[in-house]
């Protein structure tokens, strides 16, 4: 495959005697949305933390654009163009969108004073890139005035700053209404159209199925399934697969409730 942004090979992570990940292979190519699903405790969070460089794998290899990288850490992860949008979004809600996008890496002159105009232009560009535009608010609106989906948009715009190639979205649609979820999907599609890749983690199988091009199902620290949208066909197939994982053999009883 060309333009492979990152590839994990046989990643294992153990906490003492307990294996959180028992040999996971995962790759993300440029311009694709990969959906990562799995039950609680399947190892999703550990995998995200490894990608972000916050956690070191016990064994395994990490390749950035085909090149093996040693001493993987948070700094290397950023250099590789990987940005994580945390589940709680980490926004300062009483501040403007601009200030949030540049939080911790403000554009300043030699004396430390803000380059107000440059920040504004840059913020406008990022917001345009993900289709986050409105007549109701602009870059200097207060984040607290925005809805849940729009706040997610601020977090995504922030993650896209610095030419990040891979954006990890950790459950971005949890606790959002349908309209708000649609907004987040819109931002994600625009980001993909702009050539960014996205790793989309979610609990709602239907949401993940709608937005993703390819799926990775984790189960007890292993990859249980890797399939493209075409191979799966429908969200129901994915739901059935997940239920079969959770209750082997008992799927017939459970599936009527789950597929509605």
């Amino acid at each position, binding site marked *: 495959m060309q333009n492979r942004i990152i590839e994990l090979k046989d990643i294992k992570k153990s906490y003492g005697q307990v294996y959180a990940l028992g040999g996971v292979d995962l790759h993300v190519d440029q311009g694709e949305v990969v959906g990562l699903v799995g039950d609680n405790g399947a190892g999703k969070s550990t995998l995200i933390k490894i990608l972000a460089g916050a956690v070191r794998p016990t064994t395994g290899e990490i390749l950035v654009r085909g090149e093996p990288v040693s001493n993987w850490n948070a700094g290397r992860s950023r250099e590789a163009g990987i940005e994580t949008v945390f589940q709680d979004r*980490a926004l*300062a809600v009483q501040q403007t969108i601009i200030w949030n996008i540049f939080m911790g890496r*403000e554009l*300043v002159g030699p004396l430390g*004073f803000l380059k107000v105009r440059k920040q504004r232009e840059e913020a406008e560009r990022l917001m345009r890139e993900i289709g986050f535009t409105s007549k*109701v608010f602009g870059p200097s609106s207060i984040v607290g005035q925005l809805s849940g989906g729009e706040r997610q948009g601020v977090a995504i715009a922030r993650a896209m700053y610095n030419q990040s190639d891979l954006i990890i979205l950790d459950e971005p649609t949890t606790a959002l209404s349908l309209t708000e979820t649609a907004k987040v999907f819109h931002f994600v599609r625009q980001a993909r159209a702009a050539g960014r890749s996205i790793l989309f983690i979610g609990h709602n199988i239907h949401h993940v199925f709608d937005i993703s091009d390819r799926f990775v199902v984790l189960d007890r620290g292993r990859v249980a399934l890797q399939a493209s949208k075409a191979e799966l066909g429908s969200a129901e197939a994915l739901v059935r697969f997940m239920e079969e994982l959770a209750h082997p053999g008992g799927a017939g009883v459970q599936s009527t409730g789950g597929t509605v």
Partner: protein
Amino acid sequence: MTDTANRDGQSPAKALDADTVRRVAEGKHADRSRLRRFFRDHRPAVGSFVVLVVMLACFFVGNPEVFSQWNMYRAVLIGLPVVLFVVVPLVYVVTVGEIDLSFPATIGMAGWVFALVVQAGYDPFLGIIAAVLTGLVLGLCVGWLVVYANLSSLIATLGMNFMLRGLIQINTEGKSIALVGLPKTLTFQIFGGQFFGIPVQVLWALLFVAICSFIYNRHRFGVHVHMVGDNPDAAQQMGINVKLVRLKTFAFVGLGAALAGVAAVMINYTWWPTSGDGYLLPALASVFVGGTAPWGGIGTIIGSAIGSFTVSFIQSGVVGAGLSGFYVQFFYGLIIILSLLGHRWNQVRYR
């Protein structure tokens, strides 16, 4: 079953539309009008200005003769710089989500160092530098206790206030220091003299307010202060050194208190062991009367400077309006409560 699901799915869309309409109606959209944008961006400051104007108008109606004399205002202006020098850094501390009650003792300590240096025959300018260094060191000590020893800022700074004041009293045994030669020095002419009937200290204090306001709104440090006060976890995740930012705000209060200490000595050419004690509550009240939010994350330097004038004027105002001194405390309380109610109505707290 499906009906409920549909309704659940649709109602947020309707709510959002209503929400949009409300936001447009309130003028929170991308503003075209410059004036409207000014009022939106400076709501708390404009609010505290309105409080001041209303209060002055009431006093004026009460006794037009007294309140049309410049001397009435000059008396307030002489004491105002002492308050301004501490109120401005206090806005930083409150924005970062902490409180500092140790500044009265720091005012006393720094003023003491200044008085000792001048008494020893050195130039007052050296005295100012020594006082500022004292203030910075004390501020760093207080900040260390709160930030790195993890004490509650309310209690730790209160304790420091008592302890430092105690040290002053132990060492001076209550004796004041009079600096007879101070008014003749060039340094005093520059920092403490008069300029067309206006005390020069006021001009220095206003310059201080302007610079600090600019740093608060346009400098990386000011931005980080807002971020840490708004969401410390987010600030940490995005690479801001949260503890260092907090420590710096406490050091800044030390610096401001030192300038206030020097300003207080320059008013009467005398340092008293109680210097700074009377400023604790008025200065704190000024911060909030000025429109800085008590919960952290947002504030206004200009507004709090206006608030300082409001609070400083109450005492002279009440007496000037012809009421007895017994009314002063009541009016302090009344104006503080009324302006807090006003600000609560004027600004929304976002979560």
